[in-house]
């Protein structure tokens, strides 16, 4: 009897085990289906937070199109639309205002002793050529460049969309092509004038004396005074920066990405507006600011008295050294 029970127990146990296994199997078979197939999927927000841009692989030859998203353009937009306009507006208008106030206050700084009638050669024909090559291309680049930033809000409304677009397209082409002339100008300028523009103790004295701009005599200076040296180095450093970043922008995707070009544009435009505002002082001093200065860049000569008052050390060099070497005489009757 006990044997029969034992058999039954065994059968019942086997059945129970079979039931458990049979019911458990489908559960195990369904296991993969309950996994979220999206769990390992790339997530947009996560990628943007990690990389600030989303890049993958594509099948078209245009490799730069493999960047799916780069929202950084938004910061560049903010810079271009707001920050740059403020920087440009403040520096350019501020500088014009300062110069206007200065002119109303001091007027044209005269040659105290009057013209002597004797002239000294200040810039030879090559120096003048290099100056005007750089100057003319700088003015063209400045106007066409400012047009890209300020044209839409300042000129477009009264010029009309069609006419403004035609002008802006020509401006863009000139900006692209004239850049080469400007580059040559800056390089030559560096070569011919760098030796005269090394800062010296005399420049320190010149700056201490305010350069004679705020009353008193102009402190002694060599061929270039402290202010002119400052303008020279602004042109070299500022010019160098706009040239390098300009060429990066002129050749899109040659070793740069979109973010590289955005950065290049930011440097290019900020340096450019600062450069333009600095050049206003140079243009002012070279024209209406100082009597007898402009002719140095026209026929290359300056009046001997101007040289004595403005660049006494240079005047001494020129007159005491080998006379006639860099000296030109003009008839006093002129």
């Amino acid at each position: 009897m006990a044997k029969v029970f034992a058999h039954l127990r065994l059968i019942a146990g086997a059945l129970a085990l079979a039931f458990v296994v049979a019911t458990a199997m489908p559960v195990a078979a369904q296991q993969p289906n309950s996994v979220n197939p999206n769990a390992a999927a790339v997530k947009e927000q996560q990628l943007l937070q990690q990389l600030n841009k989303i890049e993958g692989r594509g099948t078209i030859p245009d490799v730069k199109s493999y960047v799916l998203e780069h929202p950084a353009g938004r910061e560049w937009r903010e810079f271009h639309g707001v920050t740059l306009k403020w920087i440009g507006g403040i520096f350019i208008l501020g500088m014009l205002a300062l110069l206007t106030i200065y002119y109303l206050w001091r007027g044209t700084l005269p040659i105290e002793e009057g013209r002597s009638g004797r002239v000294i050669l200040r810039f030879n024909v090559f120096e003048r050529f290099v100056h005007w090559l750089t100057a003319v291309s700088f003015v063209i680049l400045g106007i066409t460049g400012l047009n890209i930033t300020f044209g839409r809000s300042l000129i477009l409304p009264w010029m009309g969309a069609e006419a403004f677009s035609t002008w802006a397209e020509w401006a863009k082409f000139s900006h692209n092509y004239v850049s080469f002339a400007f580059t040559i100008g800056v390089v030559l300028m560096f070569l011919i004038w760098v030796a005269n523009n090394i800062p010296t103790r005399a420049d320190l004295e010149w700056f201490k004396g305010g350069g004679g701009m705020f009353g008193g005599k102009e402190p002694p200076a060599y061929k270039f005074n402290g202010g002119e040296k400052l303008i020279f180095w602004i042109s070299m450093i500022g010019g160098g920066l706009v040239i390098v970043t300009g060429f990066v922008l002129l050749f899109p995707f040659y070793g740069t990405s979109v973010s590289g070009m955005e950065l290049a544009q930011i440097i290019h435009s900020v340096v450019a507006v600062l450069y333009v505002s600095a050049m206003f002082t140079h243009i002012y001093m070279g024209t209406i600011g100082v009597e007898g200065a402009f002719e140095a860049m026209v026929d290359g000569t300056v009046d001997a008295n101007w040289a004595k008052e403005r660049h006494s050390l240079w005047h001494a060099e020129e007159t005491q050294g080998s006379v006639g070497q860099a000296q030109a005489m003009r008839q006093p009757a002129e």
Partner: protein
Amino acid sequence: MARMKFLCDADRCIECNACVTACKNEHEVPWGINRRRVVTLNDGKPGERSISMACMHCTDAPCAAVCPVNCFYTTADAVVLHSKDLCIGCGYCFYACPFGAPQYPKVGNFGSRGKMDKCTFCAGGPEADNSKEEYEKYGANRLAEGKLPLCAEMCSTKSLLAGDSDVIAQIYKERVAKRGYGSGAWGWQTAYRENIAT
């Protein structure tokens, strides 16, 4: 009016590039210009997803904001279009665009760009609807014919949706609810500052 948008359901895209081909053919887009492209992320790895991307026709479009000649305009359907007559090819819209949508034919010396070209949501340009001039500059104007963009229309898996924002968002939500997952409307947060809650 409708607020037109694209939505690419990345969980459905099989990277067949039919949208790219359809677009190029429909608008006779020149060689080297791709108004639409498919980008595959995590290629060959678990969680790989492909997304078809073109101009997203952003709300407060960055391209329009930075354009120096103001050549962009937004239609009543919220499609961002531009005038190739006004465009000067400066490339600023490309710097500002989060989606790499603007394309430029390479013309002339060094890197000079020609007139910008981009996805029009099959809505042409400022010229008269379906005129010869419009077709030559911007391609077909399917919207004026009452049709939706061809890329989405012929998507084999219906991954790429184009149409009114509310309608396509609803379709996507239903899909996500039914299948239980969805990797979101790619680009919507960047383009429209909003996403589809799923």
